[in-house]
C-alpha cells in the first residue's frame, strides 16, 4: 500500500469516525462476514439441523474481537443467543470453537489469546443455556489467518472465533 492510498484510507476512517461519533462508540468498519443478521434469535419452535443452512443467525459462524481483547462485543450477542438456543434445542449437537488472533505478537502468546477468545464464547454460550459437554475450544493462535496483509483491516478479520458444528 503506497503512501497516497494509506493517507486516503486513513481519511476515510476519519470521515467514518466523524460521521458516527455522535451516535455512539467508534468501531472500525467490520468486514462483510461480520454483518450481524437482524433476524430474531428467539424462534418460537425448536431449531432443527436444517436451520443451520437457512437461519441467517445460525449461518453466521464467526465473531470478531478487538486487539488483544477477548470480550464478546454487544453486536454479536444475538449470534451467541441463537447458537446457544440451537445447542439447547439439540442436546446431541456438538460444536468446536476455533480461537484465532492477528499476527502481532509471539505465536505462543497468541495461542493463549486465541484460547481466551474461544473460552469467552464458550462461557457466553453456557451462560445462555448450552451444556459445557457440547462445546470444545481449540486455539490456532495466529496460525490460520484468513487475510495475510499487514494492516488493521486484515488484522480485524483474523481476530475471530470460528464456530464449527461437529454434530448437528
Amino acid at each position, binding site marked *: 500500500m503506497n503512501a497516497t492510498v494509506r493517507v486516503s484510507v486513513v481519511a476515510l476512517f476519519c470521515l467514518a469516525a466523524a460521521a458516527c461519533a455522535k451516535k455512539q462508540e467508534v468501531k472500525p468498519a467490520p468486514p462483510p462476514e461480520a454483518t450481524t443478521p437482524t433476524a430474531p434469535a428467539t424462534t418460537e419452535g425448536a431449531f432443527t439441523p436444517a436451520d443451520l443452512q437457512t437461519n441467517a443467525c445460525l449461518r453466521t459462524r464467526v465473531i470478531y474481537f478487538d486487539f*488483544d481483547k477477548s470480550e464478546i462485543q454487544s453486536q454479536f450477542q444475538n449470534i451467541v443467543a441463537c447458537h446457544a438456543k440451537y445447542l439447547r434445542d439439540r442436546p446431541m449437537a456438538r460444536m468446536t470453537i476455533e480461537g484465532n488472533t492477528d*499476527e*502481532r*505478537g*509471539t*505465536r*505462543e*502468546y497468541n*495461542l*493463549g*489469546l486465541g*484460547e*481466551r477468545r474461544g473460552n469467552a464464547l464458550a462461557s457466553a454460550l453456557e451462560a445462555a443455556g448450552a451444556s459445557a459437554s457440547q462445546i*470444545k*475450544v*481449540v*486455539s*490456532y493462535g495466529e*496460525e*490460520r489467518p484468513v487475510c*495475510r496483509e*499487514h494492516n488493521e483491516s486484515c488484522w480485524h478479520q483474523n481476530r475471530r472465533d470460528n464456530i464449527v458444528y461437529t454434530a448437528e
Partner: protein
Amino acid sequence: MRMPKTLLALVLASLAALFATQAGAQGLTVQIVNGVPSAIPITVVPLGQQGSGPASPVDVAQIVSMDLNRCGKFRTLPTSEIVQSPTTGAQIKFATWQQLKQQYIVVGTASYEGGVLKVDYQLWDVAKQQMLLQNTVARQGSDLRRAGHEIADQIYQKIIGVRGAFDTRIAYVTMVGLGDNAQYALVVADSDGYNPQTVVRSHEALLSPTWSPDGKELAYVSFEGGNSAIYIQNIATGARRLVSSRPGINGAPRFSPDGKKLAVSLSFQGNSEIYVMDLGSGALTRLTHNLAIDTEPSWTPDAQNIIFTSDRSGKPQLYEIPAGGGSPQRITFQGQYNADVGVDYDGKKLAMVQGNGNVYRIAVMDRSMGGQEIFVSPGNLDDSPSWAPNASMLLYAATEGPRGVLYSVSADGRVRQRLVLSDGDVREPAWGPYRNP
C-alpha cells in the same frame, strides 16, 4: 560503502558455485545488511592445492571468510583485493598486507583425495609477523563445509578468546502454499543456512522447535492432530514420541539444561500455565497458578529458574520463577509488550520480543548492566529471538511483504544477515548447541 556490495557479490558468486556443484540443494541466500567499520581486518587467502586429487568441491577459504564477516567482529578482505596468494607462512610478504591495513592473515592448502577433504592452515599476526595458530582439519561425506566452520571457530577463539559457534546447526519452520494446500516443514541446516535437511512435514502448522542440549533431538508443537501437541523427535533417526496432547494448549516446549525435563505451557486445567515435565516419568509439576496467559518458559543456564511470559499485569511481560516452584517476579519494565525470552549461555543477556504500538522488535536486556536494553532488529513484526551458543549472534524471524524471513544479527545489532528461503515463508528459528567434532 563498497564493502557490503562486494560482499554480496562474493556471496552470490559462492552460492552460484554451490548450486552448480550440489544439484538440487535448496539454499538460503545471504546478505550482509550493515557493515561495521571498527571490525577487525583479516584476510583469508584462497587455499593452495595439495596432492594430485581433484579440486575440493567446497571453497573452504570462502566459508571461513563468510563466517568471520557474519559475526560482526571481523571484516575480511574481498577476494578481488587479495593481490598475492601465499599458502605458507614463509611465502607471506608482510609489507603487502600491512599496506592493505590487515591485522591478521590466514593461509593454507587443501587436498581432496578419496572423498576426504584435508586442510592445513596457519593464522598470522601481520604487524608482529608471528604465527598464532597452525592446524589441520579433515572432513568427508556431507560434512565438507564443516571444515570451513571449524577453522572459523578456531580463528574466532584464538583472536576473540571465546569459543566460536559457526560449526553449529539451526532449526526453523517453512510454509509453502495457503489454506488446505499449506505444507509445513521443520528443517535443520548449518548455521549459515546450507545443507538444509527436512525433519518432519505436515499439512498443519508446526511451531516452537527447540533443541535438546546434546543437539540430537528437537521438541516442537504440531497441529497435525487438529489441536496443538508436543513431540520430541530424533534428528538422525527420525524416531519421534508424543509427549503431550492434552485438551487445550500444548505449547512452548524448552528442554532443561540437563535435557531431562521439559518446561511447557499447558491449559488442560482450564487456563494456560507453566509446567515442568519429567521426561523419564512423564510426571508434571505445575509452577504457575493464575488466570493470566502463562507461556514461553525458558530455563536459566543454572537450571534454578524459569523465565516466562505472562499477561497477569495486563499486557505480556517477562517473569522469573524458581524451577521447583515459588513466587514469580516480574523482570521487564520497559516497553508495552515483552515476550518469548531467549536466555544466553551465562544467563546475563535476555533477548525478547518487545512491542510498542504496532512495532515489534528484538530487544536485548543485559542483566549484568542493570537491565540496560538495546534493540537489535528494526521491526515491524520481528519475533522468535534465539542465541548462538556463544551469544555472539542471534537468529530471529521477520516479516517482509508477504513472506517470513530469518535474520542473524550480531549481539550488538550492528551486522545483520538475511537468510531467505527461495520459496515460501520461513519462521521460528532456533539455534542449536555446540556440536561435537
